[in-house]
């Protein structure tokens, strides 16, 4: 549990940072709101994939 706390802290930060980086790339095809939410969805999906990798690596912890 103690090891999970830092993840809880930095994972949202990474997602937000990723969103801010990706959103401008989507701006040419999408309005501002949609480009940001799409970027957020993309980063969230990557995070979800990372979580599944974590489960595969340490199944007994979940």
């Amino acid at each position, binding site marked *: 549990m103690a090891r999970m706390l830092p993840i809880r802290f930095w994972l949202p930060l990474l997602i937000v940072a990723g969103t801010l980086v990706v959103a401008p790339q989507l701006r040419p095809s999408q309005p501002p709101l949609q480009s940001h939410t799409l970027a957020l969805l993309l980063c969230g999906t990557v995070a979800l994939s990372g979580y599944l990798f974590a489960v595969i690596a340490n*199944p007994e912890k979940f």
Partner: protein
Amino acid sequence: MTTTARIQFPRMPRGPRQERRYTERPRQQGLVQRAIMEAFRKLDPRLSVANPVMFVVWCGTVLCLLLTLVPNLLDARATAADRGFNALISLTLLATLLFANFAEALAEGRGKAQADALRRTQARTEARRQRPDGSTEMVDSSTLRRGDLVLVQAGDVIPADGEVITGVASVDESAITGESAPVLKEAGSDVAGSVTGGTRILSDQLTLRISADPGKGFIDRMIALVEGAERSKTPNEIALTVLLAVLTQVFLIAVATLSPVAGFLNQAPSVVTLVALLVALIPTTIGGLLSAIGIAGMDRVAQFNVIATSGRAVEACGDVNTLILDKTGTITLGNRLAEEFLPVGGHSSAELAEAALGASCFDQTPEGRSIVRLAEKQGAVLPFDAASASGIEFSARTRMSGTDSPEGTEFRKGAVDAVKGFVRSRGGTVPDELDGCFEQVSRLGGTPLAVCRGGEVFGVIYLKDIIKPGIRERFDQLRRMGIRTVMLTGDNPITAGVIAREAGVDDFIAEATPEDKIAVIQQEQKLGKLVAMTGDGSNDAPALAQANVGVAMNSGTQAAKEAANMVDLDSDPTKLIDIVTIGKQLLITRGALTTFSIANDIAKYFAILPALFAGAGLQALNVMKLASPKSAILSAMVFNALIIPALVPLALKGVQFRPLSAEQLLRRNLLVFGLGGVVAPFVGIKLIDLALGALRLV
């Protein structure tokens, strides 16, 4: 004042084993209501994250709910008209989560009810603690510490676990075992010398030495085990979790990359549709039921009045290859009875009866008492004053018991070769007919006990062994399941061989000592086999610890119970066979539902893929002729949600067990759950599609 409460454990009917069935669990009020409440509480993402498949569904549900509230959140072209469909998908996904949570909560609730029942036996009571000067003081049971001496009298609740120091008394252990017949407890006995806190003394009085500090007694450990067992994953569950996580990962990547591909074909699907596709693809059925199956397996063991230390122990039962069984109490009825006296060396039957009575007057075992009864029936009278004589207890080393009379005469009875050795050590000779009598009794499947007085052999007592009814059929079943049975007995090889043949065990070890048990277990384990055994004495503790599945009898010693990974509250060694069956049923249920879960995804592909890519020529895959793309997607989602509660009874009750080999079981389960898992969703999705059309929901 003393108080107690009784555990309402479900009871198995007494009688021949083949007639035993699972008994109906006592009605647990509010279990379903509590499970429903718990299902909502488990929507908390901090709890959902423990289940990778359902956490992905949770994420999809949140996304769909957001798109219901703001349909154009991700796509500026989306309109409010999409809100209805998004809402229906969101609700279906939410129902999927709730049904999965409900299944787990229902299984957990049954375990918690058992822990609560155990906790009710822990009512605080007052105890008479002995001071060092011998006087007693009344203290609260919670203040008792290991090593304290306590006096308990008829009517008292035993305040804590302890060992009997002095006294003989009958104890009502029904609060723990549910068995109403009182149990005799006495000082100096390995098995009958331990008592459990929360039980009630019915007659006489005992002085106990407390053996556990508060919170560390038998009941406390049982509560911790019942409550804690559900939280530790078994190796099999861990392996399945990895498989499900890998499948989920693969489908997540596939669905995430599908959007640009579909966009290239001008078939860009909505995000809600992609979420629906992802949920349909990932194995939600087994993901939702996995923990419920494991918890229910533990619960089924508890229904047999057996407390397992962990799910790992129950699961290990399912993989057991070898059962090591004590002859007495497991294969034969516990009480061997003296049938006949066979005199040798020119002695009369009356002389033998008198010597047998002399050797058995302190023997309180059922066999000993039956010898006394037979001798007295033949008119024998004790040849000394019992009050001044001293009893010699049976031991596995000497394999004899007896009495030393006040005049110093040694009356002994026991295994023939042990008595021969004793007689020779006293300068006596062994009559030739003794071996003839020994063989005669052994060939009848009975146990011959030689009787001597000092250096003089008087003859043989024929102890009749009765094989339990139906035990041969049980062993036949085990053999069909690929399980080898080994009988351990202290009997001579001829008797053991006759009993083994009659009972149908695969192998036997005669004249076994406690060390033989551990040697057999180690030998089997070296061959890569998993071994299960039962035991009750302190000398069984090393073997119980060594075995992959060790079942201790509740009537056994503290050491045996601590070494074992299961405790049988009814102290019935035959139950090992039932426990192995339950373990196998747990593994079969998990395998069957995994097969079903993966197989039923196929129909969902045929529902969703044509709906997604109708414009790209995949409409030909719409073999179910579903009304519209939206109806197809929603039907698949509704089926995906409904199949979880539909399978909850099967997950909790377990797939019906049949004593078949692993290959036969695999073939059968592939046919029933594999083929059934493919066909059932086609029918189910079509019916739901028709119902949605009739209701004009999409």
